[in-house]
């Protein structure tokens, strides 16, 4: 009983809150909605503190209590800065910046007194909305941020309605009206504002994402989160090749220091040398849309035919091909790229035979191993090499035999493919020993790294290639979709007479990973799990429909680029669209919009009533007839009297017309409807003609 009574009281209290309290609570809810999507990637203390502060502020507003003083706020600021430093080891980076932004916003609510302070919250809120796009630009994120922007705008409108107690619904409607009126400007700017590349270097760190990176820390990740985000989309001319054959060449990692693998330093396009890959068989043409991976390597399908040192320009970005046949960019690629390329799935790469010393020297880096590390693996390799079956082989036959033997070993020994192998190197510096001989758990990068170390121990040049392998089995709207989860690492070994050959040791332990192009599926989420249990087909088709929708969103909104802008201009009739044309069009359209706004204002300011319009026109005419005393509040009868007084009998036609108007307007009992534009025009034409006559007569007489 008491429970219901309290709830009822609470509810009625909520419905009859004082204006100030209600607005504050609304603003707090808005801030909470803006911060919410960040909860996943903020440090836990930050999320918790923000929630606490908002709750505290809400409670203060509810009770109408005083806000905390300046001293406690300063103290809190110092505390927050310290915590941020502890979490991020800096106050300036992107992550640290977002953490601070969220905390500042929460703290600002604690000193929200005047309307001026509210503005600060709004502007911080807009920043916070933008930072969400650094993590996700999906359709859902877009919708959610639209809601938070709408709420922020409504709060802004509320702050500008100082009288009475306007309802939230009303404010929201007004905010929506203002935003919708601005929609043409938004669409215009979005379509035509020149899309240019980043203005300055972007920190290369991909924020806590899986996928590719320029460095491989062996065993540092105990588990990789499966990021189902899309990395790229391809459309092939003709039928797409099987997923098993799709290898996208990303960073090539050759230097190993015992823990991490790094790329060889590249000295730019001029220093890149080597023979071009020789393609055999069919050449595939495809169109690729690459999501921003924030990586200075462009992963293209193996193997494109250009020689090392070749250049490729994509949307103003100058790429070149390195010695190890990867495509390098001068900076991390942060924009979506769209390009057309060709590739041959069957190819031969690199020098076939190290005829001269220089070529032999060039292979040297691929044989180096960190000194003194992994002795047991080296011993294992030496023992393998000593086996009798390899004794009599010549150089050309030895390498393939060794590779095959090691792959057989991987397949037959108790190696296991898992996405959660645990950390390596916790209590030993010999990481490869630990993997190759002791634990034998890992995913692609463990197998590739172990394989390459064993190859080098066997005096076979080897390197790790990272990139993507495989694709979704189902086409999306005709596109082959490659996901971040399909990031992969494999090995390349050099064999005399055959050049660099791709060897995928993961295929030896988990062939399904390579064949089906799908990673091991981690435990499904609660909802998808339940739905997948009940109706797998429904779940699949729901998921596919959603992804098609997302693809459209990606292609039309997110991938909208400079080339789309130029295409638009072409369709509008520019034969050779360039920046200048784009600028002209934007200026022209903005001027047009402004003129439209001004015209609307003028139209609205004009008298809306027919009588009033006629009255204004007559007044203009009378002032032209030297009757400055004629005023808007007088009746036609009075104007007639003034005319008579000034011009005498000569004005008689005008006087008659005015008196007739007076009669039409006032004499009848029932109110006369205002004259339409045609009637007004006729009346005025006659009146003006009479006025001209009068002017001519007065000129003659004077």
């Amino acid at each position, binding site marked *: 009983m008491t429970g219901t009574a309290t709830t009822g009281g609470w509810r009625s209290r909520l419905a009859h809150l004082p204006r100030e309290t209600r607005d504050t609570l609304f603003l707090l809810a808005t801030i909470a909605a803006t911060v919410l999507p960040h909860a996943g990637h903020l440090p836990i203390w930050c999320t918790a503190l923000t929630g606490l502060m908002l709750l505290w502020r809400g409670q203060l507003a509810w009770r109408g209590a005083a806000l905390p003083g300046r001293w406690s706020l300063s103290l809190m600021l110092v505390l927050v800065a310290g915590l941020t430093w502890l979490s991020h080891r800096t106050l300036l980076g992107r992550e640290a910046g977002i953490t601070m932004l969220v905390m500042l916003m929460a703290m600002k609510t604690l000193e929200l007194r005047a*309307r*001026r302070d509210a*503005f600060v919250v709004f*502007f911080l809120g*807009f*920043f916070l*909305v*933008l930072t969400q*796009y*650094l993590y996700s*630009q999906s359709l859902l*994120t*877009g919708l959610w*941020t639209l809601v938070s*922007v709408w709420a922020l*705008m409504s709060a*802004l*409108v509320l*702050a*500008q*309605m*100082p*009288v*009475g107690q*306007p309802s939230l619904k009303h404010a929201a409607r*007004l*905010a929506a*009206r*203002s*935003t919708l*009126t*601005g*929609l*043409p*400007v*938004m669409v215009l*700017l*979005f379509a035509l*504002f020149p*899309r240019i*590349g*980043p*203005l*300055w270097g*972007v920190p290369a760190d991909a924020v806590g994402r899986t996928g590719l990176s320029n460095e491989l820390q062996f065993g540092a990740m105990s588990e990789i989160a499966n990021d189902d985000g899309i990395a790229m989309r391809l459309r092939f001319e003709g039928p797409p090749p099987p997923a098993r054959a799709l290898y996208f060449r990303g960073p090539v990692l050759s230097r190993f220091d015992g823990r991490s693998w790094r790329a060889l330093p590249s000295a730019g396009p001029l220093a890149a040398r080597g023979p071009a890959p020789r393609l055999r068989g069919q050449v595939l043409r495809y169109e690729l849309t690459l999501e*921003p991976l924030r990586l200075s390597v462009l992963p293209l399908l193996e193997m494109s035919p250009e020689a090392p040192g070749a250049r490729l320009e994509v949307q103003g970005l100058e790429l070149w091909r390195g010695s190890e046949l990867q495509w390098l960019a001068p900076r991390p690629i*942060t*924009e*979506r790229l769209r390009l057309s390329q060709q590739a041959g799935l069957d190819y031969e790469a690199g020098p076939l035979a190290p005829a001269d010393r220089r070529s032999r020297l060039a292979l040297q880096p691929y044989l180096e191993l960190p000194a003194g590390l992994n002795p047991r693996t080296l011993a294992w390799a030496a023992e393998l090499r000593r086996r009798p079956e390899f004794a009599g082989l010549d150089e050309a036959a030895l390498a393939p035999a060794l590779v095959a033997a090691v792959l057989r070993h991987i397949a037959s020994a108790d190696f296991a493919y898992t996405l959660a192998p645990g950390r390596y190197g916790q209590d030993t510096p010999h990481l490869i020993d630990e993997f190759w001989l002791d634990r034998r758990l890992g995913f692609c990068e463990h197998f590739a790294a172990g394989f390459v170390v064993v190859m080098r121990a066997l005096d076979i040049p080897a390197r790790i290639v990272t990139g993507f392998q495989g694709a979704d089995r189902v086409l999306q709207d005709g596109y082959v979709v490659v996901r971040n989860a399909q990031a992969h690492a494999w090995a390349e070994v050099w064999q005399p007479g055959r050049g660099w050959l791709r060897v995928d040791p993961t295929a030896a332990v988990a062939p399904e990973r390579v064949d089906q192009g799908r990673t091991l599926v981690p435990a499904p989420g609660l909802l998808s799990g339940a739905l997948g249990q009940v109706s797998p087909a429904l779940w699949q088709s729901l998921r596919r429909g959603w992804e098609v929708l997302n693809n459209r969103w990606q292609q039309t*909104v*997110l*991938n*909208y680029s400079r080339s789309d802008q130029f295409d638009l201009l072409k369709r509008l009739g520019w034969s050779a669209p360039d920046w200048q044309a784009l600028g002209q069009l934007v200026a022209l359209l903005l001027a047009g919009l402004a003129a439209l*706004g001004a015209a*609307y*204002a*003028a139209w*609205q*300011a004009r008298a*809306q009533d027919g009588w009033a319009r006629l009255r204004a026109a007559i007044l203009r005419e009378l002032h032209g007839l030297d009757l400055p005393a004629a005023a808007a509040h007088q009746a036609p009868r009075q104007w007639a009297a003034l005319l008579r007084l000034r011009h005498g009998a000569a004005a008689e036609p005008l006087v008659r017309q005015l008196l007739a108007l007076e009669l039409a307007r006032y004499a009848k009992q029932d109110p006369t409807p205002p004259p339409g534009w045609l009637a007004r025009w006729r009346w005025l034409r006659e009146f003006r003609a009479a006025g001209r006559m009068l002017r001519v007569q007065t000129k003659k007489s004077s």
Partner: protein
Amino acid sequence: MSLRQRWQAWWDARHPRRDSHLMGQHNIYILPSRPGLFFCLTLVVLLLASINDQLSLGYALTFLLAGAGFASMHATHANLRGLNLDLKAPAPVFAGDELQLEIRLHNSGGARFGVGLRVPGGAPGDEPAWTDVPARGHSLLQLRCPAPRRGLTGLPALRIETRFPLGLFGAWSIWRPAAQVWVYPRPEPAAPPLPVQATGADADTPAAALLLLGEDFEGVRPYRHGDSLKQVLWKKAAQGGELLVREHLSPASRQRWLDLADTAGLDWEARLARLAAWVLQAEQQGQPWGLRLGARELPPDLGAQQRERALQLLAAAEPSA
């Protein structure tokens, strides 16, 4: 003509005094407010972030906000456009008191929100008086402004302003009302009692003669506008006769003259203040009284009109008079 005067002249010609104020394109000014400038700065930073991180949705957000800001400029302007203001004739006040202005806002268009009115040049933190005006309706606003100096003065210019809907732009309009208002001299707070009248010039009048005899004469005369109702002889009126009033004669005087000469020795404004106080006292005592300001004379009478006339005379009085 100095630059300042020229500016003033141009300003006055730009805002002629009018009885009513219809706001339109020609008399509404609009500028970005301070938050509006910060909003622009925010937009620039958002745009830079979108460019640098190649965030398509960031562009969309930036341009959405820019579009809304642009639209809000029109909405702010439209919030004033078409409003018509007029003013109820203000009541006279004493100098130092506050003028009470009652302003009506007529709206022939859609609803207006957050329309503020104030007298420019007030304290910087002064909030205007806010009101909403319903669609095709009107609303009333009371405004007070100080009236420091006596005289027939023009009303101060009024500033009508709004920042609705987003507060990013401030639109305002200046109205100089044509109406004038009397500001009377402030009565001296503790003025000495009315001076005892020297009979002098009025010695021959019958009343004065009677007064000399020391008798309390009581006569009757027809009712005149402004007579106190207490003086009406209701019994006679009930008998069907005309309205007659009793004329009291106090021993002091029958017709009192308030004379500037009686206040000699004070400075000019103080003299007027004392006379104003006396006018109020004389009016309270309910005897006909007259005012003499050097050459100007107000014949003896009683009532609200007499009081107004006397106070207006005092308000307009110049030392040369």
